[in-house]
């Protein structure tokens, strides 16, 4: 079904350039279009639409210009720091694992600024970092620490957060208003979410760093 084509829903708002590939669907219960981002993706909009994602130990930073309503969400995690860093990263001197987090945050903020957001108006909400697999080291905690540190250094206000704990989360963010809805998910989904997140992080680590390859 083409969104909006049956006349039941308003037409799909245009996506900003470079975000056309993100899948957007009509969310019946919220009555809005929602762009669904996967681990490693981000989405910025100036329209009245939502951005949604599902998080295990990953983080989603939701950032907006609180005056103009331009904003968006990213979804990332830091790779483990146990020396598994790939040879290509070591060779390039990019061993610092926070690199992935920095890229994710920079891309989101720069894209908001390019779309007309003003740095002094930025506000953030942060979600995720759950410890969904009990037997593994708490990678979520490191992700939470990273995003808090990053936002403090960039002087972006954190106006709300729901992080840590043991549950996966479904997050829906409305950049235009700054509202966010979080739904904790049952543990039946834990392993699948963890599988998806680790396949994302492994893919990122294995990518060469040369050229202008999108790093996340």
């Amino acid at each position, binding site marked *: 079904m083409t969104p909006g084509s049956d006349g039941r829903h308003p037409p799909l708002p245009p996506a900003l350039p470079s975000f056309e590939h993100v899948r957007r669907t009509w*969310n*019946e*219960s919220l009555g809005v279009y929602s762009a*669904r981002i996967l681990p490693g993706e981000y989405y910025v909009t100036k329209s009245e639409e939502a951005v*949604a994602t*599902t998080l295990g130990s990953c983080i989603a930073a939701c950032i907006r210009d609180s005056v103009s309503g331009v904003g968006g969400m990213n979804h990332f995690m830091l790779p483990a720091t146990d020396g598994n860093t790939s040879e290509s990263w070591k060779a390039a001197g990019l061993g610092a694992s926070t690199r992935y987090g920095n890229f994710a945050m920079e891309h989101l903020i720069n894209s908001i600024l390019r779309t007309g957001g003003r740095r002094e108006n930025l506000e953030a909400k942060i979600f995720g970092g759950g410890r969904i697999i*009990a037997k593994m080291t708490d990678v979520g905690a490191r992700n939470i620490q990273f995003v808090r540190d990053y936002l403090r250094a960039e002087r972006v206000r954190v106006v709300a957060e729901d992080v840590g704990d043991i*549950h996966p989360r*479904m997050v*829906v963010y409305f950049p235009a208003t700054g509202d966010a809805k979080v*739904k*904790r*998910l*049952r*543990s*039946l*989904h*834990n*392993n*699948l*979410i963890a*599988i998806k997140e680790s396949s994302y992080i492994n893919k990122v680590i294995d990518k060469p760093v040369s050229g202008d390859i999108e790093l996340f």
Partner: protein
Amino acid sequence: MSTANELVKDIHGLVTLPNVYIQIGRLIDDPKSSSADIAKAVGQDPSFTIRLLQVANSALYRFPSEVDAVPKAVSIIGTAQIRNLALSMSVASSFEGLLNELVSMENFWKHSLLCALSARHLAKLVGRCDPDAMFTAGVLHDIGELIIFNRLPEQAQQALLIALDSDEEIPVYQAEQQVMGFHHADVGGALAREWHLPALLEECIAYHHNVAGSQRHRRETALVHLANIFALMAEVDTLDPLDVPSIDPLAWELTGLEDDCVEPCVREVQTEIVAIERLFTGQK
């Protein structure tokens, strides 16, 4: 494509009905046996014996004096109830070998146990339902999921993805139906028939997502339907109905319960689970 029945045939030999449950059942059906015989059968399963006494002394039963021996447990809990407990407390170890990548046994049994506690709580409110039988129905309600996850891992994963992708607007059982043509309640019902479990358990397992499908034990099936959703609320610590799958209005109608029972039930089972989880899930 396999059917629910074929899947159950597939696991024959891998998963068997707990022996202690079978033994107690035989004795109950035998008019010549006494409760002393039943106590003896229980005593032959040391792991069950230890955990049975711990449960008998837990807040779940609130007996005025200590239950320190099996004959006493049999006489105050009741023979039929002991048989239910034998099934509830041994099924986790029966399924130990049926591993899967999608859910940890710990998380799986925790949900089952929250449902069992909710069903037991609701049975006491409703009356005319045996709380111990409802507890067992709760423990077993999702058993088909373990079979699907083990036998059809790819389809199971596909179904979970559909549920997640829809922001859970499509419940897991509907996603399973889409992918496989049947769902975990069908498989659980087939296993209950294969194991010749009482019709009450079979209906509660097979129809906990489709209360209208039950015929002989509609009230009990409706209770497990409610208990399943209350268990999810207890797990993610919410009282907001929008955070969990919607309740079939028929379940309210059949049980005569109203939504003011939600909060006390969720809060009680959140407390109860802490003390008894380890006794049922086989974790040390």
